[in-house]
């Protein structure tokens, strides 16, 4: 009863100065909103990256030309490409624990069909590419080993390309022209969606790497080599073996290639966003503390303003504890309500950001629980000193206070 009354009294006092209460809580509102938004957006981005790294395939190693510098993947790989088909074959045959190898070529080209044209990514791959990427054909079939051997003019195309070039006809068996070279569409890929960089993975034409080398690129070097290992435990060994093998094949020349595992690629991709998230969350945390100090400030003013009220309460029998609780509850209500409003605002903000960036929102319950707990702790921490000050007042002096 006594406790319930105390809460009622605190609530009434807050309601009486609603504007001031809201302004006081604003620091907490913004702080909590920022924390929630940061964590949600960060989580969303992270899950997106993880999903697309996983969709890269299982136990993947990537060999690309050029030595890696600290930043990880370099822009424009393949520009000074020195990887060869022979390198790929050597990996396939000489490294133990390798399931699949696909030499890769890639560039962007204008693709024509049906009098329509579309700029898309043209990949040169081996047949095993689809197995490595855990990708499937929804219509028709993949080009064959024989097509690869003969550098056939066959291709499989992604859903986006189908929509752009064959809006109302069955693409299977039709011809599309890449740089004026006709390729026969033998299959349509199952839709795969966007990857972590926001690229449309269905906006693709895949042809045999041999065809790409011979007919489009007209050079002997590959853009990269995609390798799939048998088991995740084997990855470090396979990575080392590939490095040794390629180094040996280069007999003493400076290494001009880099072998990366899927994990390293993922880490490189998430590292920046992780740093950003931590940084922004830290800033948000600071604003929470500033919000708490704001509450303490207002509570101190409030205690001074209400000295007489405190005196009256003490005179009619309130214990110091009752007064302490009254002001503490006020501070906690302020900060927890601020926290609640902040959560709503934070969810709204992350939803908005996710809409703009095509990310999924992952509003984590732990972030919400954490924010509420943290703002309650802020309320207790910053409310305690003013409340104790009120509780320790001498009734006669408080009554005499003008």
């Amino acid at each position, binding site marked *: 009863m*006594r406790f319930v009354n105390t809460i009622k009294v605190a609530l009434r006092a807050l309601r009486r100065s609603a504007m001031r209460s809201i302004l006081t809580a604003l620091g907490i509102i913004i702080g909590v909103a920022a924390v929630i938004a940061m964590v949600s957006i960060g989580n969303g981005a992270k899950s997106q990256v993880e999903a697309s790294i996983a969709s890269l395939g299982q136990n993947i190693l990537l060999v690309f030309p050029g030595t890696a510098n600290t930043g990880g993947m370099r822009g424009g790989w393949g520009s000074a490409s020195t990887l060869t088909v022979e390198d790929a074959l050597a990996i396939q045959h000489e490294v133990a624990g390798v399931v699949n190898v696909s030499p890769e070529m890639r560039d962007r080209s204008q693709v024509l069909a049906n009098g329509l044209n579309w700029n898309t990514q043209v990949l040169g791959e081996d047949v095993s590419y689809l197995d490595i990427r855990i990708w499937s054909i929804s219509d028709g079939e993949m080009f064959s080993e024989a097509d690869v051997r003969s550098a056939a003019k066959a291709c499989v195309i992604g859903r986006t390309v189908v929509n752009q070039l064959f809006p109302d006809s069955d693409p299977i068996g039709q011809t599309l022209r890449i740089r004026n070279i006709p390729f026969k569409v033998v299959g349509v890929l199952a839709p795969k969606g966007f990857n972590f960089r926001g690229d449309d993975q269905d906006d693709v034409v895949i042809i045999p790497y041999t065809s790409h080398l011979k007919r489009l690129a007209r050079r002997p070097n590959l853009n990269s080599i995609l390798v799939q290992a048998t088991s995740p435990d084997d990855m470090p060994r396979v990575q080392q073996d590939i490095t040794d093998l390629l180094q040996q094949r280069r007999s003493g020349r400076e290494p001009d290639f880099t072998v990366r595992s899927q994990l390293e690629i993922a880490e490189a991709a998430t590292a920046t966003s992780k740093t950003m998230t931590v940084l922004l969350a830290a800033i948000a945390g600071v604003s929470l503390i500033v919000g708490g100090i704001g509450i303490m400030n207002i509570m101190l003013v409030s205690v001074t303003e209400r000295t007489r009220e405190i005196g*009256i309460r003490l005179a009619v*029998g309130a*214990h110091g504890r009752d007064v302490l609780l009254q002001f503490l509850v006020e501070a906690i209500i302020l900060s927890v309500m601020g926290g609640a409003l902040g959560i709503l605002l934070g969810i709204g903000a992350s939803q908005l950001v996710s809409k703009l960036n095509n990310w999924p929102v992952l509003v984590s319950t732990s972030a919400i629980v954490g924010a509420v707990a943290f703002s309650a702790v802020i309320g207790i921490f910053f409310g305690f000193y003013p409340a104790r000050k009120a509780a320790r007042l001498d009734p*006669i002096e408080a009554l005499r206070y003008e």
Partner: protein
Amino acid sequence: MAAVVQLDEIHKIYDSGEVPVHAVRGVTLTIAAGEFVAIMGASGSGKSTLMNLLGCLDRPSRGRYLLDGTDVSALDRNQLADLRNQKLGFVFQGFNLLSRTTARENVELPMLYGRRAFTSREVRERALRSLDIVGLSQRADHFPSQLSGGQQQRVAIARALINEPQILLADEPTGNLDSKTSVEIMGVFQKLNEQGITIVMVTHELDIAHYCKRNLIMRDGRLVSDVAVEQRLSAAAEMQKILAAESAAKLTA
């Protein structure tokens, strides 16, 4: 009759300032249940200090104070608060109501800090009954700023009464009121006293003291006079006279 208040050589020395002030210098006093005492004296003679001691708002520097048989000097802060809550009702010169809080809620205040748990209905009913005693049940939902001085003081009396105290202490309850309103308040006190509540009040005005049964006079922290009131005034009768005089003035005007 049983002694409600027993003061034995009570001293109060304020030593917060540069020079210690000896505000109460050895007061010995017994007040029995049902008494109606007025304390008078010059400004600074220690009346308020004595009232604060009686009201357990402050502790004596020396001496023994038995309130209803309990030795108050042995009690801690919280026990004193409970004592104020249960056995004492305090009325101040400046009313000391919570602003922006209705009359009824002001009256309920001591019940919030009582030892017994009441339902909000019980609290409300008792507050209204208490307001009824001082004749203000119609104004229960008014804020102090919407009430006259006399009405505010009656709300304060209702608040002092709500926990059915044994003693009502009032420090210059009519100090801020005009003479007619003062008579009104004394009428309330006389009625309460007739119902058996012990009342101790401080006043500057001799005629107000004549509504009481016993008059004490303080000088320099000591009690110098303690007499029973011989020709006691009745607030009801005085009010009749005032009203008659008023209507006579109106008739002649």
